[in-house]
């Protein structure tokens, strides 16, 4: 099967007055049809930058430096904005933004906001549009009369469902979910996750699921991609990260140790001291070396390449070796 989305050596820098912030530095990964790829990392690791870059709208002053974003084999970076708007954005790739609950306009009804998206892309009779919106609201488990309500009349979970419906109704192939449940309670979070799983099956969607919560990724993602300081630290299948030997990269291991577990009594939770580095002037060598226990002189000098260390398991660390070797 061919990947639906291929990112090849993508570099995206924010050009600020202090210098270029290397938010995405040589990122490569594939996304298969019907797959959920989890993007994990601390704040400031480039997760959201990645999401916006795939939609071809890096937040100014962000600019693509090099690399390709291949959607069904076609590079979308050189395409004119008009074509992106018409054919790609929301048609092929859509996004549920972080704090999605706040991205609804308080002055319009839900129906009006949803119709706006629809009018922009499809010529449709108002009656038809209404039917389609009712259908999609039903899909996300909301009654049709939500259409006539204002955002403040809905709870956080309901607003999140509206935003998911809006992201879906042009039938995209890829949906990028940027922290879709962060502001929600555990029960609502669990309901939304169930909804996403059902929708994924119904429409055979591919998801890119961005979060900082590794235990949430365990429930949704087929593969986990861990980012650190604008680079990919590790890509591993779900069963490698959460089962068996566990992840290979020290950063992933530390993140996992810092995740509180409900069903284990732990006296001492580990944490990662320090903060992610400044991306204007990142540390030499491996970017994780100042916070890593295993760091050696080699780590401080040379950038580790990302290499396959097991089937479908890639890591960028001088201390990760091929299994069995």
């Amino acid at each position, binding site marked *: 099967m061919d990947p639906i989305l291929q990112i090849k050596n993508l570099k995206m820098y924010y050009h600020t007055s202090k210098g270029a912030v290397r938010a995405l530095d040589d990122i490569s990964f594939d996304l298969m049809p019907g797959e959920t790829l989890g993007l994990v990392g601390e704040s400031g690791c480039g997760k959201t930058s990645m999401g916006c870059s795939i939609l071809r709208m890096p937040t100014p002053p962000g600019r693509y430096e090099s690399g390709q974003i291949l959607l069904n084999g076609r590079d979308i970076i050189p395409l004119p904005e008009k074509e992106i708007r018409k054919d790609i954005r929301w048609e092929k790739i859509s996004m549920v933004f972080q704090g999605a609950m706040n991205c609804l306009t308080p002055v319009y009804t839900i129906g009006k906001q949803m119709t706006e998206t629809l009018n922009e892309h499809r010529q449709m009779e108002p009656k038809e549009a209404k039917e389609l919106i009712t259908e999609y609201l039903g899909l996300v488990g909301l009654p049709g009369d939500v259409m006539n309500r204002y955002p403040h009349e809905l709870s956080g979970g309901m607003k999140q469902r509206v935003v998911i419906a809006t992201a879906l109704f042009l039938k995209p192939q890829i949906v990028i979910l940027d922290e879709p449940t962060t502001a929600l309670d555990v029960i609502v979070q669990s309901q939304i996750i169930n909804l996403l799983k059902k929708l994924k099956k119904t429409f055979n969607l591919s998801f890119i699921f961005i979060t900082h919560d590794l235990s949430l990724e365990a*429930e949704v993602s087929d593969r986990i991609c861990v980012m650190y300081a604008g680079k990919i630290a590790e890509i591993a299948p779900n069963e490698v990260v959460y089962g068996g030997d566990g992840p290979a990269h020290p950063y992933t291991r530390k993140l996992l140790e810092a995740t*509180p577990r409900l069903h284990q009594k732990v006296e001492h939770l580990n*944490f*990662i001291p320090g903060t992610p580095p400044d991306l204007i002037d990142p540390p030499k060598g491996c970017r994780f070396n100042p916070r890593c226990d295993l760091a050696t002189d080699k780590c401080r000098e040379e950038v580790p390449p990302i290499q396959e260390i097991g089937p479908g398991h890639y890591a960028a660390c001088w201390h990760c070796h091929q299994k069995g070797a």
Partner: protein
Amino acid sequence: MDENNVILEVKNLKKYFMPHQTFGQAIAGKKKELRPTKAVDGLNFQIHKGEIFGLIGESGSGKTTTGKLIMKLIDPTEGSIIFNGEDVTGIKGDELKAYRRKVQMIFQDPYASMNPRFKIRDVLEEPLVIHKMKGDRKERDQAILKALTEVNLTPPEDFMGRWPHMLSGGQRQRVATARTLILNPMMLVADEPVSMIDLSTRAEILHMMKDVQQRLDLTYLYITHDLSTARYFTDRIAVMYLGRIVEMGLADDIIDHPLHPYTKALIEAVPEAKTGMVDIVKELPISGEIPNPSNIPSGCRFHTRCPYAKPECAELPEPALEDVGNGHMQACRRYKEL
């Protein structure tokens, strides 16, 4: 446990918010019956000296209102708050000021709880000035240095001159903790202190708070919706639903052997870092969303969402908290059958 050990007791605490008549209603002259929003509806609990007490529930369960009531930021509609043997429900003026010195609060959002135009030194100095705690600037500076060292912001001299925007979320929350410690309080109310902080530093902050608590023999009221950190951090947990406690007991008892169906649902909903869950749609033993607190269901207030509810649950009066041993209390009529 020793009765004298109780630092804070809350008795039948209620807070109802009365809605205002809308402009339209006033003009039309219609007398519409106004229903109060019952944010807190009959709370009873005791917090013992030197313990970390967790208050858990969804948004809208009234946990933040409870925190505000205890801080005396709002006045209760009914009931009483007893702190250190004294009734503090109706205190005013100097008494209130003295109470606030003993009970301090850490807020959820470390980005909003600090004046951006105050340097860290000023942020920490303000409570001392308000409470007229230290005589001159030199003494105050010493207290500030001590508080910063207490929360591991070292070297403290460096941090005193910084502005809040120069600090990370974790460091800000440390400053917020230092600001409360500077008054030598007896109890801290922490309202979701780590929910805005990155997962990798969350443990660090909780660890620091626990360390401070043990060293200074403090009592915490920890308000959160996150069960996993509550288990790690707290000694006892009370689970709130629509303004009432439905289950209360030792943290390990509650999480390993929950009795109330609501607690069970909350625990079930927490994602777990284990493999093999991707294709499974978890069946949650709860449906819908939390009802409007101005229209609380009859009988057991959880019956509208409870998968085990029977007609009797809606008809009989609300079940009270009942002790099932080891200080474990729960408020479900049918817990034995479930």
